[in-house]
């Protein structure tokens, strides 16, 4: 059994990537299973998806805690303690990171358990799809290639099937297929050792004692504790206020759905970047068009 875990952010096509691998493995004659995990979050929030590939019936369900192949579609996740994409991987886990950085440097800075395989998928996505955001086909192709179990032909067919479900046909489909060929060619299969089945050992179950009702019922007495949940790295786009132009009308302050724009003592709006999710509603609402939309990462293209 091969267990693949894919990490990325809402909107990047991580679920589709896991499905492309799932269908490709299935077309190549394997049993496969894929499963995304997301809560009530949205675009930009960390997302994880799983693909299991096996010659035998798959007797597992749900999340994969110890992956054989770990695909990180967005390198900013490496710094996110909530996403903790490396968590649960060991020396035997093959790491793939969508990054242009030197693998040695990545290993050192993020304390990775092994030297990662890297490829700059975002750049390739920009080149082929004119969109660096959606990485489903590129990441799915990278994963499928690294397993060494899936042929290019089955992978291309899988991409056609999965994109067809999303209504993607014609030239956009062709561009995706070209992207798949490029990624497939750029990477080599890695050796992934079948994990030894570990013997079961009893869980550390515990007996709960009854607590007083204030501790036993779901009561929250702490105020403003949402501040601790930093959502700033959900941003794909970054709003930036041009203070030369802004007339302090407070409309952005009123319209930000996250309530993360504050008016400073001089009456100027200030964005709290630790929590701004980058929805860009403020930019839409600003009557003076004083809020610019920038890419969070320095891509070459202008945001649309």
């Amino acid at each position, binding site marked *: 059994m091969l267990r693949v875990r894919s990490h990325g952010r809402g909107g990047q096509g991580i679920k589709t990537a896991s499905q492309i691998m799932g269908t490709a493995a299935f077309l190549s004659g394997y049993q496969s299973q894929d499963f995304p995990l997301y809560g009530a979050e949205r675009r930009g929030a960390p997302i994880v998806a799983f693909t299991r590939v096996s010659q035998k019936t798959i007797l597992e369900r749900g999340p994969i805690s110890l992956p054989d192949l770990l695909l990180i579609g967005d390198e900013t996740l490496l710094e996110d303690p909530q996403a903790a994409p490396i968590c649960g991987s060991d020396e035997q886990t093959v790491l793939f990171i969508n990054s242009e950085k030197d693998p040695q440097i990545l290993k050192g800075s993020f304390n990775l358990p092994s030297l990662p395989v890297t490829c700059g998928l975002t750049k390739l996505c920009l080149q082929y799809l004119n969109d660096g955001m959606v990485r489903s086909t590129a990441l799915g192709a990278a994963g499928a290639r690294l397993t060494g179990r899936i042929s290019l032909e089955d992978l291309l067919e899988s991409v056609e099937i999965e994109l067809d479900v999303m209504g993607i046909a014609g030239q956009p489909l062709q561009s995706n297929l070209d992207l798949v060929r490029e990624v497939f060619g750029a990477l080599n299969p890695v050796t992934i050792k079948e994990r030894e089945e570990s013997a079961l050992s009893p869980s550390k179950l*515990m007996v709960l004692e009854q607590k007083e009702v204030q501790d036993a019922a779901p009561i929250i007495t*702490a105020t403003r504790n949402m501040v601790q949940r930093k959502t700033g790295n959900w941003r794909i786009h970054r709003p930036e206020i041009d203070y030369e132009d802004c007339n302090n009308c407070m409309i952005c302050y009123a319209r930000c759905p996250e309530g993360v724009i504050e008016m400073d003592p001089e009456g100027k709006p200030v964005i709290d970047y630790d929590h701004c999710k980058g929805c860009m509603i403020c930019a839409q609402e600003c009557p003076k068009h004083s809020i610019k939309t920038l890419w969070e990462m320095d891509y070459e293209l202008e945001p649309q």
Partner: protein
Amino acid sequence: MNSNLNKKRMLTGNKAAAWGARLAGIEYVPAFPITPQTEIVETLSQWFADGTLQGKFTNMDSEHSMFMAAGAAAATGVRVFTASSSQGILHGLESIYTVAGWRVPFVMVNVSRALATPITLEPDHNDVMATRDCGLIQLHAETCQEVLDFVLMGYKIAEHPLVSIPVLVNLDGFVLSFSREPVMIPDEKAALEFLPPFKPVQPVFRASQPMARASAVFGGGTYTYFRIQQDLAARQAETVFNETAREFAERFGRTYEPVERFHVDDAEVVFVMSNSFATKGKSAVLKLRKQGIKAGLLKLSMFRPFPGEAIANALAGCQKVAVIDQNLAPGMGGIIYPEIVTAMYDKKDRPKKILSVVGGLGGKDIKEDDFLSIVERLNDSESKRPLYLFDEGDWSQFQQLQKIALV
């Protein structure tokens, strides 16, 4: 390329449910969205919109009206499908009881999700257990394939002249509803041969032909008559399930029984489970056997009618049984546990010990190691209380959250 694709397709549990309904040639769907069920009605609405399905798809204002509309449409003799989950099922509960008593056949899918409070999106079985006594037939699916097959078989059972009761097919939210695995989609013609268009055997509502259903009754005798009739019909559904499963196996090659025995025959310890976590249980059984523990698993595919005899026969002679309930009746424990004990009570060779285990609540995983803990508890003759699957990791996680929540 591989010939796999012609026969099987990667489907989520939700899509498999929609495919089951599609192959059944459903004519009417009253719908109301709720996570994690929404993908089912979304898929169906698309098929109605693009002409794949002929009939009517109606967005309702609530689950309460939705189940009422499902029953009312079934009473006109059309084939009806609907789906819900969790709080939605609870909101519709009054209507579910009501239309089940009308004795009209249709199929509903419940995508299991734990109930408030606290509210969550993740699965357990308290929602489907809340419909336990409504008078529905209940089939619980472990795999995406079972979801599709049970929906198709569900119509045949629901519409059988001796049953005429709505069938509920249950699948776990997230773990199955959003998981894709290869599913064999029966050929349309074969599905139609197995399940011809619905021909009601009872009078149905027609324009200009006045009749009434479900009028009020007074004096308990009449009421009792109808209720006993409902019970008899529900009990009949087990035989009908077996007949239907036999025909299904002949046509499609997949065999189903009210209970599935996995390494039960020589087992010294048997786990009783239902739904998708049974897959994890099966894996644990194989591992325990490698460690020298003769384990087995009994999966309940049918929950209503309760297949007590089949369960008793399967568990007869087995020394130790653990009933794993992914639900909790506070003040009582697991809901399925007492039903299993009742089924075994008058059997001479009943198990020496039947342990109640409560786990997998609100999306909490049941780990393979937990199964070894269950075996250990079964060997400890002292304990009387249910075993709750809550471990030190859960506790420390909770404590961290509590620090944030409390001043």
